[in-house]
């Protein structure tokens, strides 16, 4: 039976890339699928050209091609990543770090409730820290992408999620955003209520923990997670 050569497989990888499958993990699966389909066609009709057989196989993916598969793969990976964040958060709560977090929160609450203009200062510090963390994440992402391009490395969806998902900490900036926009007059931190003082202290502490988990702890373990998510990672590297 006529089989695909290594050169054909390279063409198939290029084909998937041209159809917006940018990550090696998904490319590999689709390449094998297309290759199987082409070989099956050759088993029936050996004179069929590689290009024609590929066109026939690709048509089976429907009018949207690989688009739906890519989107749903990303959604499934996000779900998996959120589970990892949840696991780390649970571990954090059960560790000594939790005691440090509670102590840190208590110090912030003491600061916002006892120091004159403490809430306003905490708001300013928290917001500055939040912006700095976003800058840190964006710089990290750019470094990662530059390195990828220079080394022409294979792209892994889950790896990019770990590097990029630090942007998820952006959600924690919502109170600051709301304060600046919607609640500008409702939450005036120059004359804060007890609720506002507690709220801003606790939220700042949570932002720090979230940043620590998403941007420091999880990326440190990226290799382990990638090996668990991708059995092909070891084969490809």
């Amino acid at each position: 039976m006529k089989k695909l050569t290594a050169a054909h497989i390279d063409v198939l990888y290029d084909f998937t890339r041209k159809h917006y499958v940018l990550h090696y993990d998904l490319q590999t699966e689709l390449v094998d699928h297309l290759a199987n389909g082409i070989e099956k066609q050759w088993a029936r009709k050996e004179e069929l050209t590689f290009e024609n057989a590929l066109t026939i196989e690709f048509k089976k993916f429907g009018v949207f091609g690989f688009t739906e598969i890519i989107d749903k793969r990303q959604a499934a990976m996000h779900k998996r990543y959120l589970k990892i964040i949840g696991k780390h958060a649970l571990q954090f709560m059960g560790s000594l770090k939790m005691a440090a977090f509670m102590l840190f929160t208590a110090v912030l609450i003491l600061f916002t409730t006892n120091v004159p203009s403490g809430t306003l200062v905490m708001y300013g510090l928290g917001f500055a820290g939040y912006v700095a963390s976003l800058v840190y994440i964006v710089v990290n992402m750019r470094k990662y992408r530059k390195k990828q391009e220079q080394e022409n490395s294979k792209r892994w969806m889950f790896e990019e999620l770990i590097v990029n998902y630090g942007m998820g900490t952006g959600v924690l900036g919502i109170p600051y955003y709301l304060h600046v926009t919607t609640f500008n007059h409702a939450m005036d931190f120059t004359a804060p209520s007890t609720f506002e003082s507690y709220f801003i202290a606790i939220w700042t502490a949570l932002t720090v923990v979230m940043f620590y988990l998403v941007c420091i702890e999880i990326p440190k373990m990226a290799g382990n997670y990638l090996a668990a998510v991708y059995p092909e990672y070891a084969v490809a590297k």
Partner: protein
Amino acid sequence: MSQSPLYKGSLITIVLQLLQKEGAMYGYEITQKVQKLTKGKLDIKEGALYPLLHKLEASGHVTVFVKKVDNRVRKYYELTAHGTQETATKIQELQAYIQMINRLVNLKPI
């Protein structure tokens, strides 16, 4: 038959049951096996199969491993213990649904 919306809700059950009966399988193999078992009447679309397999992988119902075959890497899906439980649940649900529809269509008293 493959165009029928009837099979869409049953796809997960079909795939899980197949993995339970056949053991580890790869995507293309699943499409071919279904075609063979249904004598070509049911054609699982690639655009539906792979998102489902990835969803099952993310939820821990299946686990994956790879093998180098010829010049390429092949990804196999295999049921986990959690997936085996889910298969039993899905089959029960599907059987109950078929019975209910059967009663409705045949207008037999429930």
